[in-house]
């Protein structure tokens, strides 16, 4: 043994970033985890890359918990949020009907629960329109199960808290291969602002 050995400056077989993320999420099979840990205990380069993965995962968790994303979620997600102590404001207007809604400053998540029969739908889009019918947002090919019976959509709580009183129409449409749309359900949300702020978008 020599007293000084050359330590490799570069990692010759860096662990794939996807494998590092799976390792961090505990999603690797047991037999695949062992060589990753052996490598990490010897390689600071891959350790640095794992730190980048952890930072990204932490950032995504913070973002997911912030309630600021517009995204289709699951029943389990909403339940976990409530169990974790987050204040969940949830509205479930009837199909073809409307609901009066608001948000308060201490709400964490805003959830729209849209009851709908998805059993005959192919691709499903969720559009958000103003009262005049102008589409302001389209969520294309949302993830749904045919037997779900509802679409659960998280709206941005950040946007809702800043929003003046207004009405938004949610429309669930089935889109076939030719692009033709069929209305599955329509829901009106009459939002009343209760947090102090500007009167309305139209005043700007």
């Amino acid at each position, binding site marked *: 043994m020599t007293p000084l050995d050359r330590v490799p400056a570069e990692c010759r077989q860096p662990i794939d970033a996807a494998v590092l993320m799976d390792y961090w999420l505990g999603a690797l099979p047991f037999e695949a985890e062992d060589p990753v840990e052996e490598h990490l205990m010897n390689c600071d380069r891959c350790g640095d890359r794992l730190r980048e993965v952890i*930072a990204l995962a932490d950032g995504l968790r913070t973002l997911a918990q912030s309630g600021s994303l517009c995204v289709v979620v699951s029943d389990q997600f909403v339940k976990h949020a409530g169990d974790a102590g987050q204040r969940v404001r949830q509205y479930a207007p009837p199909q073809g009907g409307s609901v009066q809604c608001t948000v308060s400053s201490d709400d964490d998540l805003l959830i729209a629960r849209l009851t709908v029969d998805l059993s005959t739908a192919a691709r499903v889009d969720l559009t958000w329109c103003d009262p005049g019918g102008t589409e302001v947002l389209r969520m294309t090919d949302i993830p749904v199960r045919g037997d779900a019976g509802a679409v659960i959509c998280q709206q941005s709580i950040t946007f809702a808290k800043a929003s003046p009183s207004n009405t938004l129409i949610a429309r669930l449409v089935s889109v076939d291969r030719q692009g033709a749309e069929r209305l599955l359900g329509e829901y009106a949300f009459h939002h009343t602002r209760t947090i102090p702020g500007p009167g309305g978008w139209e005043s700007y």
Partner: protein
Amino acid sequence: MLEASDAHLAVRIADGDTEAEAEVCRRIAPRIRLYGLRHLRSSFAADDLVQQVLLKMLEALRAGRLRDPEKLAHFALGTCRMTVVELRRTTRRQTRLLAEFGPELIPDPPPLPRLDGAQLARCVQTLKERERSVVVLTFYDEQTAAEVAGFLGLSEPNVRVIRHRAVRQLRACMESKA
């Protein structure tokens, strides 16, 4: 760059060289901490693990109990594994070892890279709906691919593919804006 090998450091520690001890701590501590973050999911618990594993390693190295000095990192990993199991059982040994050696050898951990949260939010909004749902459900409270797959009506491998694709796109998006 020339550095003393792990094996050389192990031999020097057995000879009572405290500088070699400090070098082993500097070198191995960040790796132990990563292992702790992964398995204990807490920076405080990971710091505890770093302390305990280093103390056990130094105790063994001083006594010349490491049979193959070339396998210092492997020894560290094995000690990590045993200690995580022990951490879940008792804290008594930690108290005794800390009283014996003290925490002064433990270096500050390397910080995690800083992430631009606003930019990450913009990148997430560019994902397809299916990818965004998978990302949110996965990272909100670390749901497994099986749980996410159950909600989406997809197979587990399919969820993994969607997650890999989404994470790759997010990394590219973050790097392009950096």
